């Protein structure tokens, strides 16, 4: 009996090392730091810049004081700044919707169908390797200098991160969950709708978030090249008239708008993925 017990104890012992942790409480989440901590660095820099220009250490035509930039913003507000913001936002929205729509469709197809993966993925990977700004001359040749080339460029910028997120998100779904679904006899469509897409959702949302920030980036590129309205136009205008304050004002607005749209995306992510069991909060 004693001998038996030792033998079985030996049998018991080996496979459980990894398993015992399964029922232990999850590691304590990191203590959240106060939110205002993130304001410390920019606020200090602004104060420093204000002091430096007022004291005359820095040439105010190259680095205008933050108060001066604020005054310029107020002045611009009376001269149709909202129109510029609206023009840029509309371009980003249109390009993002176009790029994201195509990326979701094609990414899902490539993720779900081995045929589409073999057929399309190599081409997309090749196209992805092209620096997107290289499309600009071609788009200008083909589409003129109106809205169309700008929106298409923004769509190209937004397309690839989203496409990658969807396609690889679906490909990377845990085989173990797919097996559970197979045991219940799910059809291909049911498998896609009930298991693959929900499981790929975190990767899809990350792709959408990256795609949106790239859409803002490409909007600026498009407007720098040819535009008569928009924040990119303000940047060019400020440079041509040697008004660093206008350039900085446009940069501040781009930062605010980018951050705002990203926060919306984060909120959407938090709502959609409330079921996720993750370690820390997402970087906002």
């Amino acid at each position: 009996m004693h001998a038996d017990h030792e033998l079985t104890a030996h049998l018991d012992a080996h496979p459980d090392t990894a398993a015992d942790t399964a029922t232990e409480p999850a590691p304590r989440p990191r203590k959240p730091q106060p939110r205002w901590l993130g304001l410390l660095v920019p606020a200090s820099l602004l104060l420093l810049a204000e002091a430096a220009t007022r004291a005359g250490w820095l040439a105010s035509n190259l680095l205008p004081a933050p108060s001066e930039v604020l005054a310029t913003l107020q002045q611009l507000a009376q001269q149709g700044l909202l129109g510029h913001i609206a023009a840029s936002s509309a371009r980003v929205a249109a390009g993002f919707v176009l790029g994201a729509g195509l990326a979701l469709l094609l990414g899902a197809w490539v993720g779900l169908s081995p045929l589409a993966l073999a057929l399309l993925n190599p081409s997309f990977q090749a196209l992805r390797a092209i620096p997107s700004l290289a499309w600009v001359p071609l788009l200008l040749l083909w589409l003129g200098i109106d809205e169309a080339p700008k929106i298409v460029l923004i769509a190209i910028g937004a397309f690839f991160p989203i496409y990658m997120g969807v396609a690889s998100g679906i490909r990377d779904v845990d085989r173990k969950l797919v097996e559970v679904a197979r045991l219940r006899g799910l059809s291909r469509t049911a498998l896609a709708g009930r298991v693959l897409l929900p499981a790929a959702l975190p990767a899809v949302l990350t792709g959408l978030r990256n795609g949106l920030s790239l859409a803002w980036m490409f909007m600026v590129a498009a407007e720098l090249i040819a535009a008569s309205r928009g924040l990119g136009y303000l940047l060019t205008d400020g440079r041509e008239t040697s008004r660093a304050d206008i350039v900085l004002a446009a940069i501040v607005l781009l930062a605010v708008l980018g951050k705002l749209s990203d926060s919306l995306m984060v909120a959407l992510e938090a709502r959609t993925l409330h079921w996720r069991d993750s370690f820390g909060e997402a970087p906002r």
Partner: protein
Amino acid sequence: MSNALLDLRVHHKAYSGRSVLRHVHLRLAAGEVLSLVGASGCGKSTLLRIAAGLDRDFEGQVLLDGTPLQGPASRDIGYVFQEPRLFPWLSVERNVGFDADRSPDHARVAALLAEVGLSGYEKALPKQLSGGQAQRVAIARALYTRPRLLLLDEPFSALDAFTRIKLQDLVVELARRHGSSLLMVTHEVEEAVLLSDRVLVLEASPGRIARSVEVPLAHPRARGDAALARWRQDVLEALQAVHAL
């Protein structure tokens, strides 16, 4: 034994050129509890996957109640994996009633959750469950379709000792109450002898059944029952004979 619930014959099963199983014939009567033990790599999990229809790439055939198994989707078979494998975005209720998609039988889910000791957890998400609770949900899910055969692949190995004891008792009791047969892969001789009517000892490379040890003790069995020691000894000797120990 002529009308076996499960009649599984594997003439040959290879995995990337290597023979995993050869000449395995396994019969399981209705209501029987059968355990498979053997060294790791002896193909016992593969055998279970074949029985479930998850693995179709082998020479042989699986008969469930006399008719060949067509695919993995038989509602007569429930499967409990080593890990719970719950869908993290679905509530406990939707996980248990996964077979019925959006319209699970609420009364049935509630009854199953009560049986596994998780009443009131319907709306909880998997992330809110402990490892043992998640495995209970997985067991409830496997029983949802009223399967006649429950396949268990080392279902308790990821649990702490106390939870394991509770779930072992629970599974055998549920199987009796629901009239399901159990086919269980385990690496614990103690567990196999305690729970099973019959223990099959598998030999490795290629996997084949080396010995069948009957445990003719009535259920429920007491964990400390000295009579179990005899069959435990038999199984251990068989394992030693096939160099699994």
